[in-house]
């Protein structure tokens, strides 16, 4: 069996034999192998991925494999940096070749990502060797762009150095990594307006944890110098920020940090926070290890000119009060601390934790100080503030003083004598409970706000009818409840009132209208269905209709358009009324008494003239809900919904006569017909939303009164080419097409020219923006119509058909919709597949030929993918042989997608099913598919495995299968090598 080409998998196996052995055993072949690796990227990738013997590294180094990183690859989506296989190999064997790693670091030039990987190799070698390369790494870190890319890896290197006890090198690296940078060095897309110091470290919750963790080995090794370095960097970071802000007083302010310890009050990390936390943890670890040595530093911080360092000192005292008793005592008794807002939190925490560590005398002194209240200066300051705000000065100072004492006593409450405890209790009962006294301000978390009634049902029931009316007239929601998790509302109260009234209708019978007239929310409450007590349907509907009838007599109620954000005006009542009436005429509602139907109709005739939607809300602007989508607007507004309900009402009435079947008879009541005739005219009803209802209910209207529809069909679908006519046309048409999938022969004969117009509209882009995909639904209609006919698509009749017109005139997206619709229809109606399939196949053939004549242009990509979906519906009688011409027609479209190659997956799925029937042809087609690919497939789905396994198991298809597996292996994908190996022995 002649076959010149050596399979890649064979080449790979021989190469692996060399890769895994000592290269010195075949010195004469080294240049040859190196040459193969240089020129053949497939072999190169394989060589490095099998894990070569470490002794290959010097060979490769000498031959320049680490001299230059791979060139970036230009793709349609920009440049891609590829994996530097030789460098990855170096990383794997670094510990065996430390000298090469150091040389690599010294000589490497290229993208930061390769520098970062080089650092990975570096940290795999002994610490002494790392030192030789350290100057280069520090040079890299000086460039912020490079530094940003390698910062995290440098941290790992620092960790390694510290873990090996190489203090000086680790500190040197830490200094370079943490160096604060001026804000101007920040990348252009980042926080332009902020002035805080920049860093090469990524600053966020996630990455900062890596930084703090990386400090652990170093602070265990040398906490003093680590702390000094971090403190120095923190001061520098603050200085840089102050300089940018031109703030000369920055040392005395630390409001950027709410608490030195971890708390949920400091949600947004900045670089200074990162440094502060690192410093804090280092100092804590230092104190833990050697408090005596750390004592001097803590004492220094307590006197520091930077407020944040003083706070840090206080924090350390409260964390370790037993180890620094003298300092604790001095700080707690220091007069300026007790009222210093800047150090408030840390001082209060020290008060809580340190008070117990004071001796008796100092405790007494501090307690007296607290009990005596704020200083005279502070009182004067408060008095001045009260004056400015026109408050009662004496009362204000007194209240402030009480709160001042209460908050401080609260912090030491566990250590108070009975007498002082009593004093605290007195203050608490007088001025209220404390709320986080250790904070100057407190930020709470998020919470859900729900509407609640101010009273319970029981309380409402206790009130008599008149009292209830009075109460409802008087009641207003409390403004205080607006900021809690529950807020009082009219709506919630209205619901409750409705429940109470409906459960005891007789009691409130005479006051219903009085209650309903007070506010729309109360009227709406009466329309809702009672949740508890069962109530007689006639009584309930009578009540609802009464409420509606009486209220709608009021012109204000009929025309009010106030729809504020708080709670709606009377428009919401009218909406609730329409919803209620609509329910009464829907099929499912059985309890509505027939004798009330005329009342319901009359109410709807009133509501069909509702001012909602206004012209503005009928045509929302771009970006607003319902823009270009009359159907959506219709279901959200009153007039359109009232019209819809009126049509449903007519259908309900007409269906009551069982003798009336089929389209045609005049089934409209006169009054309704008048309304319809009035509303269908765009000159008298300017709303697109209302007009869309005629389309939505077109088949129903046709059944109700064919003659009326025929005489008004041009009103429903205006034939004009002006913008307004087109807008009315598509409003009705798209609503028709998305709302009703049925095509009646009797209706179709009148609608055929309208379908043609709709196709023209689609070709011109005249389509509503409905999320219900009108074009897809139009395609569904056309496909359904096509399947019901028997003409040949290529015949004259066929070419004059709607489906042919659709494919001939609309754009690629719409054609794709029709192609997908064919597949969907065939899959849905499996019982009719014998009838549908030949027609679907014939249409596919025609389109495949058209696509072929057009040179398989990209214009057909999506359409052909849609036709490919027909493969899932193909009946058993079709085989890969019978479909071969169509399958060949799909090949040019493979590999064109930049994202998910849908056609590839559809075909692969089909082949997986077909491979058991005809393995040879399946594999051959699968190979053809692979020949189309411009880039290798990243990962194969299970279907590929099924195809290849079945192909390999078949004697005839085996060779083609192996060639394909070999081709796949060349792209570096070893997913199917096992199939090859099973037969290779």
């Amino acid at each position, binding site marked *: *069996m*002649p*076959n*010149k*080409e*050596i*399979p890649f*998998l*064979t*080449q790979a*196996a*021989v*190469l692996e*034999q060399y890769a895994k052995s000592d290269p010195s*055993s*075949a010195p*004469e*072949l080294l240049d*040859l*192998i190196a*040459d*193969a690796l240089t*020129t*053949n990227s497939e*072999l190169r990738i394989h060589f490095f991925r099998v894990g070569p013997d470490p002794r290959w590294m010097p060979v490769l180094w000498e031959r320049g494999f680490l001299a230059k990183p791979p060139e970036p690859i230009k793709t349609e989506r920009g440049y891609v940096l590829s994996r530097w296989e030789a460098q990855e190999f170096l990383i794997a064997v670094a510990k065996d070749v430390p000298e090469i790693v150091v040389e690599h670091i010294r000589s490497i030039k290229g993208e930061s990502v390769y520098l970062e990987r080089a650092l990975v190799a570096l940290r795999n070698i002994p610490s002494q060797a790392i030192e030789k390369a350290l100057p280069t790494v520090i040079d890299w870190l000086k460039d912020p762009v490079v530094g940003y890319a390698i910062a995290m890896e440098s941290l790992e290197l620092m960790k390694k150095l510290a873990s090996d006890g190489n203090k000086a090198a680790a500190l040197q690296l830490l200094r370079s990594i943490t160096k604060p940078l001026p804000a101007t060095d920040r990348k252009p897309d980042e926080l332009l307006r902020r002035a805080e110091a920049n860093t090469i470290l990524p600053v966020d919750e996630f990455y900062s944890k890596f930084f703090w963790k990386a400090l652990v080995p170093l602070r265990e090794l040398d906490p003093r110098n680590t702390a000094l370095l971090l403190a120095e960097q923190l001061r520098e970071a603050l200085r840089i920020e102050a300089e940018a802000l031109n703030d000369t007083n920055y040392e005395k302010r630390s409001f950027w940090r709410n608490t030195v310890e971890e708390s949920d009050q400091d949600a947004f990390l900045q670089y200074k926070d990162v440094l502060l936390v690192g410093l804090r943890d280092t100092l804590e670890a230092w104190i833990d290890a050697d408090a005596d040595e750390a004592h001097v530093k803590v004492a220094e911080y307590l006197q520091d000119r930077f407020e944040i360092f003083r706070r840090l000192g206080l924090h350390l005292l409260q964390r370790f009060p037993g180890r620094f008793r003298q300092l604790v005592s001095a700080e707690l008794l220091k007069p300026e601390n007790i009222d210093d807002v800047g150090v408030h939190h840390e001082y209060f925490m020290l008060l809580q934790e340190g008070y117990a560590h004071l001796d008796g005398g100092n405790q007494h002194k501090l307690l007296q100080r607290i009990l005596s209240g704020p200083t005279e200066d502070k009182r004067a300051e408060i008095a001045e503030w009260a004056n400015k705000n026109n408050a009662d000065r004496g009362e204000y100072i007194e209240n402030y003083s009480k709160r001042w004492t209460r908050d401080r006593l609260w912090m030491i409450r566990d250590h108070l004598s009975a007498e002082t405890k009593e004093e605290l209790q007195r203050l608490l009962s007088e001025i209220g409970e404390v709320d986080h006294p250790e904070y100057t301000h407190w930020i709470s978390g998020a919470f859900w706000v729900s509407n609640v009634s101010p009273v319970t049902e029981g309380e409402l029931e206790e009130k008599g009818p008149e009292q209830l009316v009075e109460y409802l007239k008087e009641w207003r929601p409390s403004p205080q409840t607006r900021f809690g998790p529950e807020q009082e509302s009219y709506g919630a109260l209205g619901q409750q009132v409705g429940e109470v009234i409906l459960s005891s209708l007789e009691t409130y019978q005479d006051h219903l209208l009085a209650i309903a007239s007070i506010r729309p929310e109360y009227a709406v409450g009466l329309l809702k269905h009672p949740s508890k007590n069962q109530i007689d349907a006639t009584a309930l509907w009578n009540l609802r209709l009464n409420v509606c009838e009486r209220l709608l007599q009021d012109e204000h109620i009929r025309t009010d358009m106030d729809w504020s954000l708080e709670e709606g005006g009377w428009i919401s009542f009218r909406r609730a009324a329409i919803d209620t009436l609509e329910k009464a005429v829907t099929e499912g509602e059985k309890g509505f008494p027939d004798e009330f139907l005329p009342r319901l109709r009359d109410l709807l005739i009133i509501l069909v003239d509702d001012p909602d939607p206004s012209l503005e809300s009928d045509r929302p602007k771009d970006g607003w809900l319902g823009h270009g989508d009359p159907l959506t607007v219709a279901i959200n507004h009153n007039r359109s919904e009232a019209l819809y309900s009126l049509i449903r009402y007519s259908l309900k009435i007409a269906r009551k006569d069982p003798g009336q079947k089929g389209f045609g008879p005049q089934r409209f009541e006169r009054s309704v017909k008048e309304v319809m005739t009035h509303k269908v005219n765009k000159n008298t009803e300017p709303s697109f939303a209302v007009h869309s209802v005629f389309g939505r209910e077109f088949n129903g209207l046709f059944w109700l009164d064919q003659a009326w529809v025929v005489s008004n069909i041009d009103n429903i679908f205006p034939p004009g080419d002006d913008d307004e006519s087109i807008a009315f046309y598509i409003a009705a048409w798209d609503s028709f097409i998305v709302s009703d999938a049925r095509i009646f022969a009797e209706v179709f004969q009148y609608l055929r020219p309208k379908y043609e117009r709709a196709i023209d509209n689609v070709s011109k882009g005249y389509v509503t923006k409905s999320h219900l995909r009108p074009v897809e639904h139009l395609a569904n209609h056309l496909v359904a119509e096509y399947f019901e006919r028997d003409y040949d698509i290529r015949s004259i009749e066929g070419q004059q058909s709607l489906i042919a017109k659709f494919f001939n005139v609309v754009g690629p997206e719409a054609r794709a919709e029709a192609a997908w619709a064919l597949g969907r229809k065939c899959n849905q109606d499996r019982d009719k597949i014998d009838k549908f399939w030949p027609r679907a196949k014939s249409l596919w053939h025609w389109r495949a030929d058209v696509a072929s004549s057009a040179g398989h242009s990209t214009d057909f990509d999506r359409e052909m993918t849609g036709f490919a979906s027909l493969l899932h519906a193909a009946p058993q009688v079709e085989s890969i042989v019978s479909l071969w011409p169509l399958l060949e027609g799909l090949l040019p479209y493979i590999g064109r997608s930049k994202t998910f190659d849908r056609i590839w997956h559809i075909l692969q799925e089909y082949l997986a099913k077909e491979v058991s029937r005809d393995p040879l042809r399946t594999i051959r087609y699968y190979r053809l598919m692979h020949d189309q690919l411009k880039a290798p497939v990243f990962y194969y789905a299970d279907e590929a495995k099924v195809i*290849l*396994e*079945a192909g*390999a*198991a078949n*004697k005839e298809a*085996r*060779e083609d299968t*192996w*060639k394909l597996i*070999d081709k796949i292996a060349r792209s570096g994908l070893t997913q*199917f*090598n*096992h*199939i*090859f*190996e*099973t*037969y*290779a*022995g």
Partner: protein
Amino acid sequence: MKRWVLTFVAIGGFVLLVVSMRWWWKPLLSFVHINSSVIQGFAALLAIVVALFGALRLLMRLWRPNKSPVEQAFEYRTKQAIAQAQLKITGLSRSFERSEVGYIEDQLKLGKPVVLTGDAGSGKTGIAALTAKKARRRKKRILVLDALRVQHVADEAGLRTFFSATEPLVTIIMGLAKPRGFRLVIDQLDNTIGLPVSRILIELACDCSGLRDVEVVVISRKKESHESRLLQKLISTGFVELESRELRETEAEEALKLLGINDPSADLISLCRNLLNLEIVATIKKQKPTFDFRNVMDEVAVWGAYLEVLHRREEDSTGVEEADRTMSEAIRLARYVLSTDDQVFMLDHPSASHRRLISWGMILNDDGYMCRFKHEKLQDFLYSRDAVDRGLMPDDVMNEIHLVRSRNVMLWMDRIYASRNSPRRAQFVREMFNAQ
């Protein structure tokens, strides 16, 4: 036929016993001085009862019901599979103690099914055979299924056909498990990777592992992740994974010493940790006790020596020409097999050379006229060495053999060129990688 003969012997023996009583019971009575008339009657009765009982038992054994075609198929396939296993190394009086057999038994006693994995040449098939024999000693029914033989099977129905079964195998095994239990051993599962039958065998193993009184042992290589993935389903079903290891260095060294190879080199010891290599070394030693193993450093040398020894022996008995002819035929057969994607070849009119190859143990008669090389490695080596002798380059080889066989052959050729320090090696590698 055998059964009729044994029946005749049993009845004949009984008659002979009764007839012979008159010669042996009288001397016995006189020896014990007892009244002969009473004792004589009693003894005669007793002898007749005992003889009758023995004869009946023998007849019952001979005439028990015939085995069903499925049982016969199970027995045949099991025998075939066990026969393949080499339980002893040539020249060694005892087989190696395989602790793995004990580990497997321990797990089976706990009611756990076992999957035994290990590298090629680590003795897995031998362990499978030993495991089956243990079960047989305990009167359990057994089926050792060599997966290699069912590679062609595409579905469960195919597997039924292979065993002449009309019901699903699981149902049959469930029936055979009564009353003494059943042990199913599936060997060489790795040979079905990538084939539809792998899933069928795994399902069979999983289904059987859930049956009462059925023990399941699955044996497979585990050198690649594909095998691991294949076995993953078994592991997730509750199979316990045990590993079959190569010999330890001390064991290999001891085996070599027992073979009479004293002071073996480290390379030879390392090579002989693999049982297949050890077997080849043992065969060489047996065929030519004076063979010097000091130069045997690698597999090329081992297999080369093996062929050389076989040739020499043939030379001594039939002459150089006949030996050359036989070896040439072996090479021709290897080339033929490698040009196909199959492992077997047909010898419908075996020549003298073929008979010699079979007697050398180089070729096995598989089924009817179907034969195959006992070791695929030898088949590949035979061809590769010949190809190197002919100075073939990769492209030449690709014209002679099937592309899927090229991997192992090229690997051998590369090693053989290397072992000979051939000047053609560089050219071979250059062509292999299409290098400049």
